[in-house]
C-alpha cells in the first residue's frame, strides 16, 4: 500500500481532529485572518466615511436577538466607525424584540467612545408595522416617534433640532434578518429616494444582489463576512473577524481534505491502470 492509497482510506478521525482544531485554535488564540474587501462593503464604508462631522446617519437595526450572531457585528462596526469619525447617528428598530439589544449595544459603544445620548446619537425605539412606520418617518420622525426610547420628547433633544425626516439625513443603513429590507427598499428608497444600504444574514444575501444592480441599494453587508470586511476597513477586529476566522479555517480544512481526497483518488487510479496494462 502506497502513501496515497493510505490517504484514500484515511481514518475519519483525523478529519474530525482537524475540524476540532480548526474551531478550537481560533477560540483560544484569537488572530486576524486576511479578509478581501468586496466593493459592496467598501461603498458602505466610504459612504459613512464621507458624511461630514455633524451630518447624520440613519441606522435601522431591524433584527431580533435570534439573528444577533450575524448582525450584531455589523451594527458594532458601523457604530464604531460613526463614533470614531464623530458622525451623528439616528437609530431605530422595527423588530419587536430589538429594543433591549439595541440599547445594550449603543450604550456600551457610546461609553467606549465617549459619545453622549441626545448629542451624538439618538435611539428612537420600536414601532410595529414597519412599512407604515417608514412612510410616517418619511413625513416626520416625530409622527411615529414623538418620544425617543428613553421617553424624551424629540423636540427637546438638541441634536434633532431642524431634523425632520429622511431629507435631513445622508442615508439609511438597514440591518435585518427578515423582510424589513423589502420595506426599506420599496417604501423608503422608493418613495423618499434616500441612499440605502442593507446588512443581511448570509442566507438572504443572494436574494438582494439584484437591487445592487438596479441601483436601489448602494451597498450590501452579507452576513458575518460583510461584518468582518467592515471591521477590516475600520481596523477594529471584532466579532465578525472572529466568526470569519472560524469559518475560514474550517472551510479551508474541508477544501484541503477534498483536494487531498481527489489527488489520492486520481493517483491511485492511474497506478491501477498501469498495473492493469502490464498484466
Amino acid at each position, binding site marked *: 500500500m502506497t502513501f496515497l492509497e493510505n490517504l484514500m482510506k484515511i481514518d475519519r*478521525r483525523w478529519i*474530525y481532529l482537524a*475540524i476540532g482544531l480548526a*474551531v*478550537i485554535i481560533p*477560540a*483560544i488564540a484569537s488572530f486576524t485572518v486576511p479578509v478581501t474587501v468586496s466593493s459592496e462593503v467598501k461603498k458602505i464604508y466610504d459612504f459613512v466615511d464621507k458624511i461630514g462631522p455633524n451630518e447624520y446617519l440613519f441606522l435601522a437595526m431591524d433584527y431580533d436577538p435570534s439573528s444577533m*450572531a450575524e448582525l450584531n457585528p455589523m451594527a458594532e462596526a458601523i457604530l464604531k466607525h460613526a463614533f470614531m469619525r464623530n458622525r451623528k447617528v439616528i437609530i431605530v428598530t422595527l423588530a419587536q424584540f430589538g429594543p433591549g439589544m439595541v440599547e445594550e449595544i449603543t450604550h456600551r459603544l457610546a461609553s467606549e467612545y465617549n459619545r453622549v445620548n441626545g448629542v451624538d446619537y439618538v435611539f428612537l425605539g420600536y414601532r410595529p408595522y414597519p412599512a407604515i412606520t417608514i412612510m410616517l418617518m418619511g413625513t416626520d420622525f416625530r409622527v411615529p416617534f414623538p418620544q425617543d426610547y428613553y421617553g424624551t420628547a424629540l423636540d427637546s433633544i438638541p441634536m434633532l433640532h431642524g431634523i425632520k425626516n429622511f431629507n435631513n439625513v445622508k442615508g439609511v443603513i438597514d440591518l435585518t434578518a427578515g423582510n424589513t429590507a423589502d420595506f426599506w427598499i420599496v417604501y423608503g428608497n422608493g418613495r423618499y429616494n434616500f441612499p440605502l444600504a442593507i446588512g443581511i444574514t*448570509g*442566507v438572504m444575501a443572494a436574494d438582494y444582489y*439584484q437591487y445592487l*444592480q438596479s441601483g436601489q441599494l448602494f451597498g450590501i453587508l452579507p*452576513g458575518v463576512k460583510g461584518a468582518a470586511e467592515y471591521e477590516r476597513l475600520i481596523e477594529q477586529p471584532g466579532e465578525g473577524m472572529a*466568526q470569519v476566522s*472560524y*469559518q475560514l479555517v*474550517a*472551510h479551508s480544512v*474541508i477544501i484541503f481534505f477534498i483536494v487531498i481526497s481527489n489527488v489520492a483518488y486520481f493517483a491511485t487510479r492511474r497506478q491501477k491502470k498501469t498495473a492493469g496494462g502490464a498484466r
Partner: protein
Amino acid sequence: MIGQLILNGIAAFLTLCIFSFLYKDNPFYKFAERLVAGIATGYWTMLLYHTNFKPVVWDRLAAGRYEYVIPTLLGLMMWTRFSRNWSWVSRYSIAFYIGISSGITITLSLYASLFKQLEATVKYPITFDGAGLSSLLIIIGVLSALVYFFFSAAHKGTMGVISKLGIYIIMIGFGAGFGMTVMGRVALLVQRVIFLKGYVNSLAGLFGG
C-alpha cells in the same frame, strides 16, 4: 454561583461524553445517550400533558364540550394495541388519523409545491438582458429536471440527453445546498466550543483567583 458551576459542569461533562463518540462508541457516550433518551421522553410526556392533553382534552371535556368525547375515544382505542385479539380496533383511529391528514395534504402540496413554484417560474418575462437570460435559463433548468423525473419513458435519445442535463442541474443544486450549509454547521460547533471555554475560564477563575 457554586450551584450554577456544578450544573454547568454536568452540561460540560455530557458535552464531552457526546463528543467522545467521534473517537469511538464507549461507555460514556452510551451513558449520555441513555440518560438523554430517558430525560427527553419524560420531558416530552410532561410537555404534551401540560400543553396538549390538559387544554385540548381534559379542560374541554370538563367544560362540557362533549364533541371531544369522540376524538378522546378514538385516542383510547389506540390502546387496544396492547391486546393481540383486539388490536384491529385501533385501525379505526388510524383510519381517521391518516384520512384527515391525506385529505389536507392533497390541496396543501398542490398549492405550496406546485402552484407556488409554477407562479414563480412564469413570473418574469424572457428578455434580452441579464435578468431575462436568467429566467430563460431557470425555465430550461426546471424543464430538464422535470424530464429526469419521468418514469414511464426510457431515458434514451433526446429524452436521455435532456434528462441528463436535468440530473446535472439537480446535482448543482445539491452541491450548492451542501456548500451553503457548512457555515451554519461550523457555527454550531463554535457555540459548543465557546461554552466549554467559558466553563474552563469560570473554573480557572474559581481556583486561580
